[in-house]
């Protein structure tokens, strides 16, 4: 993770161990290069040990900052050293090459060089070189994720360094052991180791070591969830690295600061530091720092929700880590990548990357005692993740299933809607068609109604004319009487005038006056009977007239009598053999009532005509004892509470006109039908069936009632009840 720098320090220490002064600072590179140029002026300088030492010193400095340059410089050195038997130089060259490779992240090749150096040093008994080489080998194993072997090598290095009192190596090994503790999560032990490293570095006046120690302590503080304290340590480290111009330390601290600000949720600052770290590390060709910066950026962007950008950086980090084969960085890269994929909702990739993460995490946490627990923990974490993803996957499957189900439902609904719409359209068309039919039928019905109304009007008129026909004979008779008088008196007057002339000749004035008086009286009678005939004709015309007339106060007794006569004479005119006893029983108090005279007259006429018909019918079957009788009576009744004392007969109450016959009566089964239109008992052609129906309507229109009282075999009575 963040602590690859301690091993860089270890490399530094190893250089120191190779008898160079600890004060080798970047500024010294110039001095060394000058020295190198001077040495190159010598003849056969390539086989000069001083030259080789100086080359090694320069390469050592390049190994950290420009490993390729170091490689180029050292290209022929091991061979040349071996050729002149300068094995210290050869060993040193191998080690520096290992350092350069380690900086590049090529751990396997670096290990090869280190082991070659170690074998050579061991063979040649260079005791002082062994501790640093052991430390560097431990560093390789650490980078490869093999903590047990790494720890073993580091402790061997520590032991050897203590034996040779090599404080630089002691400090480096302590630092690296602390780093392993850090990775194992043993923060207290890590902190203790880093504190010792810090003290030793200060004792050695090693700025890089001090910076590194502060950096590492800051990282521990971060892990201990104490970012404030971490920031304190890291600020110290950053300032020192800046002031003392230690670029490799600066880039390390920069990245760690990025982490710190990330932990503090100060994403802006974190991004700034990681970008700076990225720039610096690229300048220095520091793969680990580059990878770390990429990781940092990925983490921050992941947190910011910029998954796309985060993923690009995570992939960059992963590529770098893969190039190096650096286990911690691989693990971290996989972890962040998985996290990003998870956030992006890509469960499959997330699982894939978590599996890789788990693989590296598993291989890293492999120190004997920790192994089981760590494995368990990792397994737990993994199964937790897996469960989480399984759940997510299940959720996704459910989601997909739900979506499919929803889609199918939607399609079904859509289909139903379409079908219903089709049906609706059909139904609508059907309804439209039916509507048209109904409208057509309605139109026809209305036409029929209009025709029926016209027919009814015609029928009513027919009925009027029919009753008029019945009346005609009666009217003729009624006219006959006044006409007779007119004729008779006219004739008499003619005779009287003759007499008058005779008397005038005689000169009998008295007689003349008497005759003249009679002539005048007769003349008045002629006039009277002429008017009488005129009134009858007018009534007849009125009867046949269409439309409704205004109501007028009418003497009900007179009206009843008039129409009784008309009816009787009418019937007698048609059937001379007919005879019946007519009886009248008029209530003198019947008085005037407000009616349409000819309408009520028609009702009376109709009832009397029916009565005559009824008695005439019975005459045919009854014996000679039978005396056909028709009675017309009127009666005025005062309604209780409506009559006014002293004003009797003027207002309130009702008048009834009853027409009774002693015919056969109305059979009970047709009583309910007799007022229905077109119902008739008369032979076809003789009755319209509208008489009683119209009578009923007329009486109703007057606010009255038309009732029938019948006693089959003994006669019937029709009662017109009219309100006064």
């Amino acid at each position, binding site marked *: 993770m963040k602590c690859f720098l301690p091993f860089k320090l270890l490399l530094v220490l190893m250089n120191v161990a190779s008898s160079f002064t600890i004060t080798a600072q970047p500024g010294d590179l110039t001095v060394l290069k000058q020295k190198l140029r001077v040495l190159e002026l010598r003849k056969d300088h390539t086989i000069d040990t001083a030259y080789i030492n100086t080359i090694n010193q320069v390469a050592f400095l390049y190994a950290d900052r420009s490993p390729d340059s170091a490689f180029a410089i050292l290209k022929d050195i091991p061979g040349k050293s071996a050729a002149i038997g300068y094995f210290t130089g050869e060993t040193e060259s191998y080690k520096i090459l290992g350092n350069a490779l380690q900086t590049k992240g090529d751990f396997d090749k670096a290990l090869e060089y280190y082991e070659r150096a170690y074998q050579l040093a061991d063979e040649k008994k260079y005791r002082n070189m062994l501790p640093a080489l052991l430390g560097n080998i431990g560093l390789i194993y650490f980078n490869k994720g093999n903590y047990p072997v790494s720890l073993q090598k580091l402790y061997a290095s520590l032991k050897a360094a203590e034996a040779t009192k090599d404080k630089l190596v002691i400090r480096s090994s302590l630092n690296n052991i602390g780093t392993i503790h850090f990775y194992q999560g043993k923060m207290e032990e890590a902190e203790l180791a880093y504190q010792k490293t810090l003290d030793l570095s200060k004792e050695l006046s090693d700025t890089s070591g001090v910076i590194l120690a502060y950096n590492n302590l800051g990282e521990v503080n971060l892990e201990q969830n104490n970012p404030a304290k971490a920031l304190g340590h890291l600020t110290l480290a950053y300032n020192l690295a800046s002031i003392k111009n230690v670029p490799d330390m600066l880039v390390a601290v920069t990245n760690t600061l990025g982490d710190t600000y990330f932990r503090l949720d100060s994403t802006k600052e974190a991004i700034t530091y990681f970008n700076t770290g990225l720039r610096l590390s690229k300048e220095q060709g520091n793969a680990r720092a580059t990878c770390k910066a990429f990781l940092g950026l990925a983490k921050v962007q992941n947190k910011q929700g910029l998954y796309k950008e985060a993923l690009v950086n995570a992939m960059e980090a992963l590529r770098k880590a893969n190039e190096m084969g650096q286990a911690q960085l691989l693990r971290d890269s996989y972890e962040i990548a998985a996290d990003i994929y998870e956030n992006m909702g890509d469960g499959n990739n997330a699982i894939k990357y978590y599996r890789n993460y788990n693989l590296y995490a598993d291989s890293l946490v492999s120190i004997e005692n920790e192994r089981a627990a760590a494995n368990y923990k990792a397994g737990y974490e993994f199964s937790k993740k897996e469960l989480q993803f399984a759940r997510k996957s299940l959720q996704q499957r459910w989601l997909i299933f739900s979506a499919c189900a929803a889609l199918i439902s939607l399609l079904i609904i859509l289909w139903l809607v379409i079908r219903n719409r089709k049906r609706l359209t059909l139904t609508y068309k059907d309804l439209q068609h039916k509507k048209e039919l109904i409208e057509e039928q309605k139109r026809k019905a209305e036409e029929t109604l209009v025709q029926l109304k016209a027919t009814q009007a015609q029928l009513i008129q027919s009925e009027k004319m029919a009753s008029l026909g019945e009346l005609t004979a009666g009217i003729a*008779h009624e006219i*006959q*009487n006044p*006409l*007779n*008088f007119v*004729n*008779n*008196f006219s004739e*008499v007057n003619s005779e*009287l005038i003759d007499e008058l002339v005779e008397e005038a000749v005689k000169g009998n004035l008295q007689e003349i006056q008497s005759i003249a008086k*009679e002539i005048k*009286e*007769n003349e008045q*009678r002629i006039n*009277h*009977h002429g008017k009488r005939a005129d009134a009858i004709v007018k009534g007849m015309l009125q009867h046949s007239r269409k439309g409704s007339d205004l109501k007028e106060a009418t003497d009900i007794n007179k009206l009843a*009598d008039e129409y009784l006569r008309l009816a*009787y*004479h009418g019937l*007698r*005119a048609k059937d*001379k*053999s007919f*005879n019946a*006893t*007519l009886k*009248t029983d008029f209530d003198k108090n019947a008085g005037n009532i407000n009616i349409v005279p000819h309408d009520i007259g028609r009702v009376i006429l109709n009832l009397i005509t029916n009565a005559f018909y009824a008695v005439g019918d019975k005459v045919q079957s009854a014996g000679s004892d039978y005396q056909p009788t028709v009675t017309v009576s009127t009666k005025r009744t005062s309604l209780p509470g409506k009559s006014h004392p002293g004003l009797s007969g003027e207002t309130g109450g009702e008048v009834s006109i009853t027409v009774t016959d002693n015919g056969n009566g109305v059979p009970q089964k047709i009583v309910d039908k007799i007022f229905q239109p077109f119902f008739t008992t008369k032979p076809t052609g003789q009755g319209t069936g509208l008489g009683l129906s119209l009578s009923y309507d007329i009486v109703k229109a007057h606010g009255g009632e038309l009732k029938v009282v019948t006693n089959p075999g003994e006669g019937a009575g029709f009662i017109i009840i009219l309100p006064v």
Partner: protein
Amino acid sequence: MKILVVDDERDIQMLFEQRFRKEIREKSVEFVFAFSGEDALTYLNLHEHEAVLILSDINMPGMSGLELLEHIKQKYSKPPPVVMMITAYGDTTNYNTAMELGADDFLTKPVDFKLLKEKLKIDSDGKNISG
């Protein structure tokens, strides 16, 4: 000769009086009028045997001429007055009924006064003959 005329038309009185004004003036005939069957019977009860001839309309409200005829022929049998029925309807049923009831003659409206006068003369003569 006293003649009772029964008719519901009141102007019949004036008509008869004018038509027979010569005979009335000569007092060869005397008229009495009744305007319904009931009135006629009342008069006959009060003036028994005065009227020798009764001229009656048939169609009258209340008591009809035929009813009156029946009464007269039943009640005043000795000597029964001559009863002549006058009707607007010259139908056989009325004629036969009137004859069955003992009517002496049957006239139809409008009354032919010439014919009536002749009949009265014959009647008068006949009575005179018989008397």
